[in-house]
């Protein structure tokens, strides 16, 4: 078995002549069972079914086996055995990822880190938490709450998603504009390279000696290392929060109001936009009190001390009025604040009620191009014959178009994917990116060819090779082969130069 890992490099997994784990996995399974807890290895076909996809259920594949270690040393032992046998390893957190980053392969061990779920230490004075990767995102904030502290990044799946998966994907959330992404809130990790070599990157200090490998590992989608411990920064929980809901007669006006808020020197804790289709779907579902005649609604939240919030809310209201808000509601108590947010937070399930299936995209654009990109999405919607609702982290330019389709209609899946790729092309064309927070996984491999040049993709492969020379950690994800990009025919033309005429196309 061979897997292409870059520009023509091929690595033969069958270098171990004694044991061919794919023809006869029994010796490897026996060795794995020896280092794992009694119920820590799943190999029977009926046990593997639940593991065949992550949050991107469009793609399914049964793994070779599933390992469920409970300690870091068990993780290390599993990695050593797989490395020795030349078997790929795919690390998995809670399996909520939306890009297929934890999609299994039939020739790879799926390494679930869900049972490493101890909160090892919370230091309220230093404001750090040291946790294992299987700890749920929300559980960190729950554990820190008695100290008046919390972990800021809050991806929408925070009840279920794990901190290990958050680090692997560099997850965001609705409060990124003010509080940053995972990469801004993680101080250190411990883990292992593909061959089981222990690594410690960062710690409890704001910067590491040498190169910032912590930034490089964060968001590397399980291709560079497997982490078994994470140290995160905790922040003081704001005392107050209030949200303004403003409706606008056009998407342009709402976009202008966003620019106006930022331009006034305000960094809201959250700044979200929904278009008319998303608003109607949500209102029918949760009755959040959104006006149905609006072309777009904005939710702008302020948090901090009572004085800060009152001051900022007044300024946000004033900007929204100035940009022609047709209605304005400001939460007067916590119940109303949560009600106004309930709509936004239910946007995906609400859309799920009005279409058999939907495909969630994740592009980021400079905010000033919002109107143009939404218009382009409208044109593409007609062209591909599929409806699309738009939910937008307006403060940081992260757009989530939700493409409506019906998987039971022949050709719909392909049309939805083609529509999605066209949306991402439009994002790149205005200087944006193909993924703001969901990651590349398997889903956006083709889109990567649009955003990066051959040289840049080759650099990614070389970095992967530097950490994992045998190419065993989550192979084939996150970075497309140059071969694939040549086939996609979407090879990026960089800085006006033709991409490497000397490169063979095969």
């Amino acid at each position, binding site marked *: 078995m061979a897997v292409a890992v870059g520009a023509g490099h091929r690595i033969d997994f069958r270098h171990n002549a004694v044991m061919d784990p794919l023809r006869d996995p029994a010796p490897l399974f026996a060795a794995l069972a020896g280092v794992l807890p009694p119920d820590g290895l799943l190999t029977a076909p009926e046990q593997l079914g639940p593991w065949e996809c992550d949050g991107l259920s469009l793609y399914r594949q049964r793994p070779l086996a599933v390992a469920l270690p409970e300690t870091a040393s068990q993780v290390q032992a599993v990695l050593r055995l797989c490395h020795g046998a030349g078997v790929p390893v795919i690390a998995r957190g809670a399996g909520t990822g939306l890009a297929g980053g934890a999609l299994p392969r039939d020739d790879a061990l799926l390494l679930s880190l869900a049972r490493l779920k101890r909160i090892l230490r919370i*230091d*309220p*004075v*230093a*404001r750090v938490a040291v946790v294992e990767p299987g700890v749920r995102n929300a559980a960190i904030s729950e554990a820190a709450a008695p100290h008046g*502290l919390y972990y800021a990044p809050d991806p929408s799946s925070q009840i279920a998603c794990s901190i290990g998966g958050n680090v692997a*994907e*560099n997850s*965001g959330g609705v409060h*990124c504009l003010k509080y*940053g992404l995972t*990469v801004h809130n993680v101080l250190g990790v411990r883990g292992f390279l593909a061959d089981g*070599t222990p*690594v*410690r*990157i960062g710690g409890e*200090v*704001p910067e590491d*000696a*040498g*190169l*910032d*490998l912590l*930034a*490089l590992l*964060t968001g590397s989608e399980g291709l560079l290392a497997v982490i078994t411990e994470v140290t995160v920064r905790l922040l*003081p929980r704001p005392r107050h929060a209030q949200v303004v809901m403003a409706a606008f007669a056009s998407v342009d006006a709402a976009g202008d109001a966003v620019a106006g808020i*930022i331009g006034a*020197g305000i*960094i809201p804790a959250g700044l979200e936009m929904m278009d008319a289709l998303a608003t109607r779907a949500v209102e029918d579902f949760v009755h959040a009190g959104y006006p149905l005649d609006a072309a777009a609604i904005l939710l702008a939240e302020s948090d*901090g*001390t009572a*004085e*800060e919030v*009152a*001051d900022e809310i007044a300024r946000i209201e004033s900007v929204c009025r100035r940009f022609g808000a047709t209605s304005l509601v400001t939460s007067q108590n916590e119940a109303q604040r949560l009600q106004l947010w309930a709509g936004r937070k239910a946007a995906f399930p609400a859309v799920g009620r009005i279409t058999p299936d939907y495909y969630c995209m994740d592009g*980021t*654009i*400079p905010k000033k191009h919002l109107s143009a990109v939404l218009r382009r999405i409208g044109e593409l919607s007609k062209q591909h014959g599929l409806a699309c609702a738009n939910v937008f982290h307006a403060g*940081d330019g*992260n757009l989530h178009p939700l493409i409506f389709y019906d998987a039971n209609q022949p050709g719909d899946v392909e049309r939805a994917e083609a529509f999605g790729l066209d949306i991402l092309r439009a994002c790149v064309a205005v*200087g944006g*990116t193909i993924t703001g*927070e969901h990651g*590349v996984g398997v889903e956006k491999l083709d889109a*990567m060819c649009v*955003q*990066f*040049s051959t*040289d*840049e993709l080759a*650099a*990614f492969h070389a*970095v*992967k090779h*530097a*950490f994992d020379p045998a190419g065993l950690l989550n192979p084939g994800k*996150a*970075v497309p082969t140059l071969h694939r990009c040549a086939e996609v025919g979407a090879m990026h033309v*960089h800085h006006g130069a033709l991409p490497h005429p000397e490169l063979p196309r095969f």
Partner: protein
Amino acid sequence: MTETREPAVARLRDAVLAAAASGGVLHARGGGSKDGLGGTPRGEPLATLEHAGIVDYDPAELVVTVRAGTPLAELQAELAAHGQMLPFEPPDWPGATVGGMVACGLAGPRRAFVGGVRDALLGVRLLDGQARVLQFGGRVMKNVAGFDLFRPQAGAWGRLGLLLELSFRLLPQPQAERTLALPMAAEAAIEQLNRLAGQPLPMSGAAWFDGQALLRLSGSAVGVDAACRQLAGEGWDAVDAVTATAIWQALRRQELPGADRSDKAAVPLWRLVLPGTAEPVPGTRCIDWCGALRWIDDAAHGQGRPAGAATSVGASTHPLQRLAASLGGHATPWRDHPARALTVSLDPARLLLHRRLFEVFDPHGVFANGRLGIA
């Protein structure tokens, strides 16, 4: 905005190509304001000042894209004209350029509360050791496409390539800013400042020197006023605005406040980055970043002499480096220090990863100029 001077890239490319072909070594040099920092450079200086100018700045995006040779002062003036700023308070020594600011990765007092250079960096365009133009990241705040090869450029001292263009996220300048002081010993300050940082106060600076703790509060006028009222009740006294500005400026520029400026070259200093709550280290002259940054007098730890060859790691560590490591941090001999040639100490696994990354971006060693301190 400065006019486009993109032809400079062609000259820089030629220089890198020539060095790669001839086994030459280059070290990028902008205004030379950091000549005394980092490892002693080897090879030929490569002037970057020509590649200057603000490429794109839209205040409503809170994002700016700048060429590496742009004087930092020019960028700061442009941002200030729109009521915005780089969040991390870089040391703005005369002559400093944006490229040097990123390469050294240094940040001022606000770093403890809003992050450092790497946290504000959104994207880079660079020339690698084979003169290929590579672009990572972009101009948007959320971007997880491809490995993050842009943030690691901050503090890499140019070892992974020659920086050409850099994009940053910005912050609005705070409406109001006030500084408070309270006399106390270093140990008490470490405890107190960290406890306050755990409260929802609009803190933007937390330091200690000359027997007093300093707190800076930034944000909306009403928010800062309310915080000042709370802290006045706990004994904190207001510092007048002129004195306060001078203090934070001195901390930002590493001109340690309270000390006689003329002795700064005479007394070698060490820069320690530690967990914020780590115990005080003997010889502590000044504490910043809520305890995470310590400036230590060399005299308290014996003369720091270069020990061992620059390539041997681990064996050549100074006692202060070992002390910092035992506390969970690291120590660097600072500005014109006689021990400047000391290597950065890394464990074998990380050292191997560093060397492989050097190989990825610079197979001919064009940028192996000694400044990063890792061979």
